[in-house]
């Protein structure tokens, strides 16, 4: 059972299962397959499989890494070259092998290794995957929500974060800017703000922008989006509560005093349109300070200008550092793969004879062939031994 659970066969089955489920999930996005129990179960099985496999592989890896000339035995087919010990050793050194040597009654055993990084790489990669999965598990407990406000406003933390930060944590939005580059293209959006945690000012005049979120402990504040609102001051309505300043989103109708009001940019200029069921709609381009008639009873709308609303995403992150540590290890492991394949030469020679018997090992048969070709070029191969 344990053998099967840690087997490569199961690994291939599970990886294939994850791949197939992912394909189906992108074709049927509504099924939300990635949060289904069957998907989670397969990932858990994958984790166990990889964990067990790694536990079994590591001791073997360690042994292989610390193998010495004493471990050289006459095992399997070898090739014989007409080279003496000095010549072989010189060749190994020239090719940057690390060498272990043992002499016994005139015979010499040599173990030559190269590419230990490549040998360690899969194990490090496997461990990094385990770490990433553990971190990902924690990060499923992330909580996030949005806070949106106009410059000058103080906005409480979103509902989702209140269980941790209470009712008195807030962001006070000091400024919102669109930053342009030399070509006048949008380079970034930046919000400056004060941060209050449990009513206490903990960060003053700090900024968050796209690609550079603000971090306070586990709390991340992202520049998520922004919006421009048309500020319309209403006066003269019967219900006093309706006489206030409205911030209308772009091109979205709102009902004010029984009228439908829409504000939008038309040819780059602000335009306000008022309509009801009786009169035909009236609209005009506006400048700050312009007054429009709202109703027959004398209510008015004064256009005050536009205001920028910054939309911030607040997130309590958990496990991200674990995932990032896994990412770092995975990257290091990837570079280690690229440093070249592990290869091992086991050599029996010595006794003053001009003869070396060499067993060559690598995961890639191409590497073995290359090494044997190189050796044969140096010393025309005399024979193959079974």
């Amino acid at each position, binding site marked *: 059972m344990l053998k099967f659970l840690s087997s*490569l*066969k199961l*690994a*291939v089955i599970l*990886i*294939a299962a*994850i*791949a197939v489920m*992912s*394909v189906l*999930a*992108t074709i049927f*996005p509504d099924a939300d397959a*990635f949060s289904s129990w069957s998907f989670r179960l397969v990932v858990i099985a994958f984790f166990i499989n990889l964990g067990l496999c790694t536990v079994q592989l590591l001791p073997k890896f360690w042994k292989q890494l610390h193998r010495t000339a004493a471990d050289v035995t006459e095992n399997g087919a070898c090739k014989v070259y007409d080279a003496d010990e000095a010549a072989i050793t010189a060749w190994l050194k020239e090719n940057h092998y690390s060498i272990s040597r043992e002499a016994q009654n005139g015979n010499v055993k040599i173990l030559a290794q190269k590419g230990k990084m490549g040998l360690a790489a899969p194990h490090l*990669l496997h461990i990094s995957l385990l770490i990433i999965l553990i971190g*990902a598990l924690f*990060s499923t407990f*992330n909580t*996030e929500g949005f806070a949106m406000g106009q410059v000058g406003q103080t906005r409480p933390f979103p509902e989702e974060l209140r269980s941790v930060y209470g009712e008195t944590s807030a962001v006070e939005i000091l400024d919102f800017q669109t930053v342009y*580059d030399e*070509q006048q*293209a*949008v*380079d*970034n*959006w930046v919000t400056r703000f004060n941060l209050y945690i449990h009513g206490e000012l903990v960060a003053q005049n700090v900024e968050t*922008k*796209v*690609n*550079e*979120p603000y971090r306070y402990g586990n709390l*991340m504040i*992202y520049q*998520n989006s922004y919006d421009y609102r048309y500020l319309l001051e209403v006066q003269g309505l019967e219900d006093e509560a309706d006489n206030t300043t409205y911030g209308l989103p772009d091109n979205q109708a709102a009902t004010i005093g029984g009228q439908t009001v829409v504000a939008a940019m038309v040819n780059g200029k602000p335009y306000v349109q008022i309509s009801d069921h009786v009169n035909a709609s009236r609209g005009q381009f506006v400048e700050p300070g312009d007054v429009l008639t709202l109703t027959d009873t004398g209510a008015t709308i004064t256009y005050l200008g536009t205001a920028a609303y910054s939309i911030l*995403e607040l*997130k309590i992150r958990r496990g*991200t550092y674990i*995932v*990032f540590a896994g*990412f770092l290890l*995975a*990257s290091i*492991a*990837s*570079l280690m*793969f*690229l440093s070249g394949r592990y290869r091992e030469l086991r050599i029996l020679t010595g006794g003053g004879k001009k003869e070396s018997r060499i067993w060559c090992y690598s995961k*890639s*048969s*191409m590497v073995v062939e290359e090494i044997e070709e190189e050796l044969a070029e140096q010393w025309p191969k005399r024979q193959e031994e079974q």
Partner: protein
Amino acid sequence: MEQLQLPLLWLMLAAYVGALAVYGLGIWSRNEKMQHLATKVVYVGLAFTTAVLLLRSVLIGGLPLNNGFEFGLSFVFVAALAYVIIEKRFSIGAIGLFVMPILVVLCCWLVSVDLTIEPVMPALRSYWLAVHVSSAVISYGAFAVSFAVSVAYLLKDKSGDNAQSRLAQSLPSLKVLDEIAYKLIFIGLPFLTIMLVTGAVWAEYAWGAFWSWDPKETWALITWLVYAIYLHTRFLKGFKGRRAAWLSVLGFVAVIFTFFGVSYLLPGMHSYLV
């Protein structure tokens, strides 16, 4: 200078089409010299590709990795370069017959897309993204050539290893083809891993989530899983050779779907790339 892009792209396309034709003729006529000539034509194509890449870099004042066109162009560059290296190393010109069609199709797409230079949106202005996209390009280039080698494998396999067909004769042995594909995937996968990792880090900073199962992300993961299966099945009995070649083909189908299919067929965060 912007107007220079299209003519250069056409020249590049012409060179790869020409190389394909000469490879075809060389194999059909069993003329090795002709195959060498075809490889020279690939060098010409590579020179044009380099020229467009450099021109584009100058035009945008940075690495040409910002949109679908630039990515595709870099993809062609790396795939052609990977082919040239493999060709030189193993002197297997006949593989060109299988690599060139990929380059030709990509070039046809490149000459058809909009070449105007649009400003890059703020979220894409990140160093993480530069590493993310460059490693993607490198892995895709390696996978493209491994795909071609595997297709060659399957065709040769179908006609029998020692068949008298002109194509089978001009290709190296099945074992060598299998090993070359393996080697390329072994190089491609680490870059794909780096692509996934840097993409996730960038997403964490830009969008606030290192992974959100958006279709492009998911397909990149699927690609990675297919190639992981490829590498692991090599340790199992009976998976070298034909089955491995099919897995390599499947992997490249996933690559292409991640690049084109997701952008054109499925909606998602990444769709602005094309």
